[in-house]
C-alpha cells in the first residue's frame, strides 16, 4: 500500500499494516526531518525492519540531497541477510507499483570469510585464517614483488578486480552476500573488495556494528562514507558493550612471550634488509621525517595494520625522532616489553589510571608519552617496509602497540587493572593486564558527530533514557511503542514461590539452597507437562546452569522431565551448541517437543529466535546479573557513577533486566505468535525490576501475575494456552492490531495512533534534565 506519512509518500510492500508501524514511521520521519538522532523501542516481531526501510527509502527518493545513504548496522550475519531480503521485497514492490526500474544500489558487506571465492582461501575455517591468507596474496608489496617475480602467487580475483573492477560501477540492484559472490564469480572479481569499494556509492549498506564502531576497522572501511547518511543500529540494546569491547585490551604472559618472538623476528629481518637493501630503510626514514601520513600510501588490502584510535585522532605530526629509525623502534619496543613483563610480576592486584601508568613508565624506563602514541602507526610502517607476508603471526606485537597508542591517547575513560591470578584459583599464577574501556561513548562519538541522523532501535531498550546517557548524545526523539494486540498473545508470569512456599530466587545467598533448586526443577517439570512443543529456559550463567543440571540429575528431576520432552543444553562449545540447537528445532518440528536449557548473555540468547512452536514458553531462572565481583565491572560502575551520575545498582539492574527481556522476548516474533514468559525469581515482582522491563511486556503484568506459586503458574498457563489454541483469523485482528489503508485513513484510527504518540511525550519529558548531565560531563578527549 501507499502511505502518507506526514506528507511523505511511502511505499509499504504489504496489504495491511500494524498501527505501531505507522506510528514508528511517523517518529522516524520527524527524526530525519530534524536531522538529529533517535532512540526507538518497538517490540520484536512488529515489522520494525520493514518500517525503517520503507520510510528511509522513501525519504531518500523524495529528498535525494538531504539523505544520500542509509547505513544499516546489525549484529549477526543472518540478521544482515534478513535485512537485505526485506529490502529486496520492498524494491520489488517499488518496481511493481511505479513500473520503472529504480537504480538503487544496496548491498551487504561482511568479512572475507563470508565473501571470499578464492578456492583455497575460502576453504579455511576460521575468519582469522581467511584474512591472513588473503593478506598474504593481496598485500600491496606482495603484488609489487610480482612484477619482478612472476612466480609470486597472487589472488587472481583481486587482480582482476583491481584491473577493471573499479571503472564500471556494479549494476544497481540488491546484493546479498550470496548475490555478491555469484556476481564476483561471473566477473572473476573479488566480491569482498568489490563490496568494500561499492559501499562508497551504494544507496544502502548493510553491515555489522564493527565496521562503524571498532576504530581499527572503521578507519579503513567506513572512513569515506558520506556525512549525509542515516545510520541505523538495529538490535542495539547491547551497543555499549560492543563499543567497550572494541577498545579494550588484555595482555597475558603468553601475549608477551609471543610478542618477544615477534620483536626478535623484526630485529633479524631488519638486520637482513640492512645488508641487502639498505635503501629501503633509508626511504622509510625519509618518509617519516617528512611526516607523510601513512594513510596516504595505505592500500585497502593492508587492513591488518590499522590504527586503534579514532579517525579524527589521526595524527597530523611527524613520527617523533626517537623511534624513527627501525633499530631504534625495535629497541623501544623491547624496552616497553620488558616494562610490561616487570609489571606482570606482581603478587597483588593493582589498579591505576592511564596517567598513572604513563608516569610510572616514564620513571622506570624513560618512555615518553609521545612516542607511545605513535607506536601503532610506526609499527604499521615498519611491517610494510619489511614486507612481512604473514601478518597474522604478528598479532601479539600489534596488540601491544595498539595498547601503547590507546593508553597514551586517552587519559580518561580507561582503567588499567593488573591481576596476578584468577579469583577462583588463587594458587595458580596467571597474571593479566586488563586495559579496559569504561566509556562506550568514546567509540561511538565519531559516529554521532559525523552522521546527520543516527537511529538506535531494538525490541528492548528500556529504560530508554539510559542509552543517551551512557552513549553521551542528545536524541531528538525517544519513543517506546507498544504492541497493539487483538488477543493477549504474551503472558508474563512472575513465579516467586514453590508449592512449599519457599521463595525462589537466584540471589547469591540462596542459590545453592536445595529447596530453591528443587523448586526450579519442579517448575520446569510442571511446565514440560503442559506446554506444547518447545520450551526455552535461561539460566543466569554457565556455572549456575551446570550446577543446577547436575543436582537435578541427582534428584531424578531430569528423568521425569524426559518423560515429557527431550532435553538439550547449551554449552560453551559453539559447534556442540549449534548441533543441540538444530536437534532441538527438529524435535519441535516433528512434534516430539523439547526443552532447551540455555544461558542469558550466551550466544543463543543473543542471536537465535524461537518463533512459534520453537518457543511456546520461556522460563527465566533467576535475574541475570552480571558477575559483580569482577574488578573491571566495579571500575566501570564507579566511572558511571562519577561521570554520568548513574548509581551502581541502577546500572546493574538495568543490565540484568535488558538481558532478561532479551531472553523472554525471543519467544514472541509477531502477532500470530504466542508464548508464555515466566520469570522465576521473586525479585522480579519488585517495582524497580519490573519497571525496567520494556513497556510491551510490562503492560501485561497484572497484579494477579506477581509472586505466584508453581501451582498457580500452571493454572494460569493452562488457561492461557487453551485460549491461544483457538483459531486466530485475520478478521479478529482487523481494525485493532491490523489495518487496511481505509482504516488507517479514518479519523478515529488516527486519533488512536496519536494516543500512542502521546505516551511518547512522556518519554520526551524525561529528557529535560539531560542537558544538565551533559554539561556536567567534561570533554574527555584531551590530546
Amino acid at each position, binding site marked *: 500500500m501507499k502511505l502518507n506519512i506526514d506528507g511523505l509518500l511511502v511505499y509499504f510492500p504489504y*496489504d495491511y499494516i*500494524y498501527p505501531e508501524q505507522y506510528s514508528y514511521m511517523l517518529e522516524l520521519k520527524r527524526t530525519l526531518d530534524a536531522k538529529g538522532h533517535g532512540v526507538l523501542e518497538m517490540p520484536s516481531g512488529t515489522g520494525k*525492519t520493514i518500517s525503517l526501510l520503507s520510510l528511509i527509502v522513501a525519504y531518500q527518493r523524495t529528498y535525494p540531497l538531504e539523505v544520500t545513504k542509509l547505513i544499516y548496522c546489525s549484529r549477526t*550475519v*543472518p540478521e*544482515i541477510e*534478513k535485512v537485505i531480503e526485506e529490502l529486496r521485497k520492498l524494491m520489488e514492490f517499488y518496481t511493481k507499483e511505479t513500473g520503472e526500474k529504480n537504480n538503487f544500489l544496496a548491498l551487504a558487506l561482511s*568479512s572475507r*570469510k*563470508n565473501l571470499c571465492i578464492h578456492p583455497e582461501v575460502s576453504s579455511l575455517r576460521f*575468519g*582469522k585464517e581467511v584474512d591472513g591468507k588473503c593478506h598474504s596474496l593481496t598485500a600491496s608489496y606482495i603484488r609489487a614483488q610480482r612484477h619482478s617475480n612472476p612466480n609470486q602467487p597472487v589472488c587472481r580475483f583481486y587482480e582482476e578486480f583491481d584491473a577493471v573492477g573499479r571503472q564500471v560501477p556494479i549494476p544497481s540492484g540488491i546484493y546479498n552476500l550470496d548475490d555478491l559472490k555469484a556476481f564476483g564469480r561471473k566477473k572473476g572479481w573479488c566480491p569482498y573488495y568489490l563490496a568494500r569499494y561499492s559501499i562508497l556509492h551504494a544507496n544502502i549498506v548493510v*553491515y*555489522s556494528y564493527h565496521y562503524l564502531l*571498532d576504530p581499527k576497522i572503521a578507519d579503513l572501511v567506513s572512513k569515506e562514507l558520506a556525512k549525509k547518511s542515516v545510520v541505523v543500529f538495529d538490535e542495539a540494546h547491547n551497543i555499549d*558493550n560492543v563499543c*567497550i*569491547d572494541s577498545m*579494550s*585490551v*588484555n595482555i597475558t604472559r603468553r*601475549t608477551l612471550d609471543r610478542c618477544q618472538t615477534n620483536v626478535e623476528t623484526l630485529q633479524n629481518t631488519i638486520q637482513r634488509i640492512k645488508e641487502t637493501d639498505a635503501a629501503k630503510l633509508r626511504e622509510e626514514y625519509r618518509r617519516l621525517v617528512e611526516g607523510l601520513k601513512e594513510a596516504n600510501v595505505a592500500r585497502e588490502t593492508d587492513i591488518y595494520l590499522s590504527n586503534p584510535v579514532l579517525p579524527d585522532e589521526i595524527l597530523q605530526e611527524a613520527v617523533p625522532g626517537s623511534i624513527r629509525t627501525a633499530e631504534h623502534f625495535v629497541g623501544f619496543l623491547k624496552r616497553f616489553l620488558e616494562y610490561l613483563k616487570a609489571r606482570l610480576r606482581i603478587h597483588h592486584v593493582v589498579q591505576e589510571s592511564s596517567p598513572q601508568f604513563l608516569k610510572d613508565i616514564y620513571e622506570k624506563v624513560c618512555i615518553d608519552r609521545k612516542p607511545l602514541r605513535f607506536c601503532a602507526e610506526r609499527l604499521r610502517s615498519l611491517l610494510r617496509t619489511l614486507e612481512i607476508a604473514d601478518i597474522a603471526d604478528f*598479532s601479539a606485537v600489534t*596488540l601491544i602497540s595498539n595498547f601503547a597508542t590507546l593508553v597514551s591517547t586517552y587519559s580518561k575513560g580507561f582503567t588499567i587493572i593488573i591481576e596476578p591470578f584468577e579469583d577462583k584459583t588463587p594458587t595458580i599464577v*596467571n597474571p593479566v593486564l586488563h586495559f579496559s*574501556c569504561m566509556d562506550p561513548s568514546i567509540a561511538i562519538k565519531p559516529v554521532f558527530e559525523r552522521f546527520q541522523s543516527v537511529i538506535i532501535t531494538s525490541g528492548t531498550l528500556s529504560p530508554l533514557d539510559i542509552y543517551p546517557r551512557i552513549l553521551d548524545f542528545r536524541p531528538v526523539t525517544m519513543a517506546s511503542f507498544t504492541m497493539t494486540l487483538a488477543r493477549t498473545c504474551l503472558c508474563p508470569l512472575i513465579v516467586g514461590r514453590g508449592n512449599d512456599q519457599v521463595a525462589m530466587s537466584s540471589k547469591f545467598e540462596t542459590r545453592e539452597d536445595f529447596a530453591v533448586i528443587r523448586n526450579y526443577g519442579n517448575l520446569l517439570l510442571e511446565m514440560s507437562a503442559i506446554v506444547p512443543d518447545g520450551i526455552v529456559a535461561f539460566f543466569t550463567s554457565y*556455572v549456575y546452569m*551446570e*550446577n543446577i*543440571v547436575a543436582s537435578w*540429575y541427582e534428584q531424578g528431576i531430569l*528423568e521425569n522431565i*524426559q*518423560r515429557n520432552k*527431550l*532435553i*538439550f*543444553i547449551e*554449552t*560453551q562449545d*559453539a559447534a*556442540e*551448541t*549449534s*548441533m*543441540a540447537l*538444530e536437534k532441538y*528445532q527438529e*524435535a519441535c518440528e*516433528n512434534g*516430539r517437543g523439547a526443552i532447551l536449557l540455555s544461558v542469558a548473555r550466551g*550466544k*543463543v540468547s543473543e542471536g*537465535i529466535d524461537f518463533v512459534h512452536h520453537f518457543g511456546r514458553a520461556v522460563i527465566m531462572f533467576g535475574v541475570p546479573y552480571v558477575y559483580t565481583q569482577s574488578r*573491571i565491572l566495579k571500575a566501570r560502575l564507579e566511572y558511571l557513577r562519577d561521570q554520568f551520575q548513574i548509581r551502581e545498582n541502577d546500572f546493574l539492574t538495568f543490565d540484568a533486566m535488558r538481558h532478561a527481556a532479551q531472553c523472554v522476548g525471543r519467544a514472541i516474533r*509477531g502477532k*500470530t505468535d504466542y508464548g508464555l514468559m515466566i520469570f522465576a525469581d521473586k525479585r522480579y515482582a519488585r517495582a524497580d525490576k519490573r519497571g525496567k522491563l520494556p513497556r510491551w511486556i510490562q503492560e501485561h503484568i497484572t497484579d494477579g501475575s506477581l509472586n505466584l506459586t508453581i501451582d498457580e503458574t500452571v493454572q494460569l498457563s493452562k488457561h492461557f494456552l487453551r485460549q491461544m489454541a483457538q483459531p486466530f483469523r*485475520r478478521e479478529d*485482528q482487523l481494525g485493532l492490531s*491490523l489495518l487496511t489503508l481505509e482504516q488507517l485513513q479514518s479519523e478515529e484510527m488516527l486519533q488512536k495512533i496519536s494516543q500512542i504518540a502521546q505516551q511518547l511525550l512522556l518519554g520526551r519529558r524525561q529528557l529535560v534534565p539531560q542537558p544538565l548531565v551533559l554539561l556536567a560531563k567534561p570533554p574527555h578527549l584531551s590530546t
Partner: protein
Amino acid sequence: MAALSEEVLLVVKRVRQRKQDGTLYLMTERIAWGPEGKDRFTVSHLYADIRCQKISPDGKAKIQLQLVLHTGESTTFHFANESTALKDRDAAKDLLQQLLPKFKKKANKELEEKNRMLQEDPVLFQLYKDLVVSQVISAEEFWASRLKLNSVDHALSNNNKQEVGISAAFLADIRPQTDGCNGLKYNLTSDIIESIFRTYPAVKQKYAENVPHNLTEKEFWTRFFQSHYFHRDRINTGQQDIFSECAKQDEKVSHLSCVKNPMVDLMSLEDKTLDEGYGSLTALPNSSKTVKENSNSAIIKRFNHHSAMVLAAGLRKVEASSDQASETSSTDGNSRDSDFFQPPIKKVKLQEAIEYEDLQNESGPKTIALNLKKSDRYSHGPVPLQSHHYSTSQDIINSVSCIQEEISCYKPCLTRVMSSSAASSAITALSPGGVLMQAGAQQTISQLVSTDVQSELKHLYTAAGELLRHFWSCFPVNTPFLEEKVVKMQSNLERFQSTKLHPFQEKIQREYLSTNLTNHVEEMIQAAYNKFHAWQTRRMLRKT
C-alpha cells in the same frame, strides 16, 4: 485335520489338565493337549487366539501354566513330572514366549487390515456385500487374492506410517534397586533392550559381536551399566571397557554431521569477532576446571547426546527406507536433479524469517514444491529407450536453429492448396450430424436408463469383474489347488449368472429396456466359459 501336516515343536508328557494326565503338544500354529492313552486332542488352541500366558510363581508347590484366550476363557496346565516339572514348564513357556507375539500381531493386523480396506473403499465394500454376504464366494476366497494383491501397497503404506518413537526417559525406567547386600539390580525388559539398541546402534553392534561367544547376556548388560559410556559423569576407569569405542564412534559421527540450517549455526553467527586479546570481559580459557565442573559438563554432554540419539532413532527407519528408494531409482545418473531444483535451505529459511503472514493477503493456496527425482522423465514422459543415440544439448541447439532457419524461409505454396469449397464440405461432413459423424448420434446409456438401474448395473459389472478376475487368475492351471479353484470359480460364475444376472435381465425386460445392456457382461462370462470348456476338454484328453 489334526496333526496332519503340522510340525510338532515340543512334546511334554505328564501334564495334567482338569485333573487328568495327558501330553502337551506345541505345534507351529497351535497348542494342543490330549489325555493319556487317547488319540485325539481334547484341548486345542490356535496361537492367534491366545492373549497371554501366565505361570505360577517360583517356589510354589504346583507348577502351572495358564493360557488366557481372547475370549476370556482360560486353560491351566499342571506339570506333574516331579523331577523335571520346572524344566518342562520353562521350556514350554519359552517356546510360547517366542511364538505368541508372532501370531498376535499377525491376527490383529490381518483383521485390522481387512476392516480398514473395507472402510476405505466403498466399492470393495459393495463387492464384499454382493459376493460374500450373498454367498456367491466365501470370505476366505474373497480375501485370498485381495490381501496378496494389496501386500504391495500395503508395504508402502506401512513405510509411510510413523514409527513409534522411543521415550526419552527409557533409561529412567531401569532405576537400579539395591538388593540389600551392596549390589545393584537392574530390571531389563525386552522393550528396554530394544530401546537401547535402537537408540544406541553402537551398543547393538557390540552385543552382536560379543554375545554369546565372548560374554553371556547377563555379563554384557552388567558391563554396560558399569561402563563409562553409560555413566558419562564418572571418570573413565575401565581399561577393558568394551564400550569405550562406542563413545569414540559417536563422537566421530557427531563431528561429521555439521549443522545444516545456517540460521542456527552459532559458529558463523558473528560477522567479525574481536581479535585475540581485545574485549573487556574475555572468558579466559578454562584450563583450571575442577573435577566437579568437569563431571558436570560431562552430564550435559551426555544429555545432549542422549536426546540427539533418541531423536535420531525415531527418524532413522524412515530415512533408511527413503534412502534406499532413492538409491534404487538413481541408477542412471541424474538423481541429483532434485537437489538442483530445490532452493537452497538458506534461502528458504531466510524467506521464512522475514515473512509476516498476517500483513499480506495470502496469494492463493500454498503450493508444495514439486520434488522431481528425474526432471527429464517429467518433461518427456515415459518414452521407449532408444538404444542408438541420445541427443546432446548441442544437437538440440543445432536442430532448433535448423528449424528456425527453415521456418524463416518457409513460403506457403498457395497454388497447391485445396479449393475452399472442398474444404468446407469436408468440415461439414466432420461436424456432428454430418455424413461421417452418424455413428456418434446414438444416445448414451445415461440418458436412457434410470439411475438406480445404472447403479445396479455398475454393481453387477464390478461383481462380475471380481469373479472373472478370480477365474482368470487361475490360469495357467498348473497345480491341483488351482484346478480345484478354477472348477469352483466356474460354478461361482454360473451361480452368479443365475442369482444375479438373470434377475436383472428380467427386470430390464419388464421395464422395456433393450437387453443389450447386459450383452457385454454376458460376453465376458461366455468367454470365461469357453476358456473353461477348452481347458476341460484338453484335460480330459490328457487323462484318457
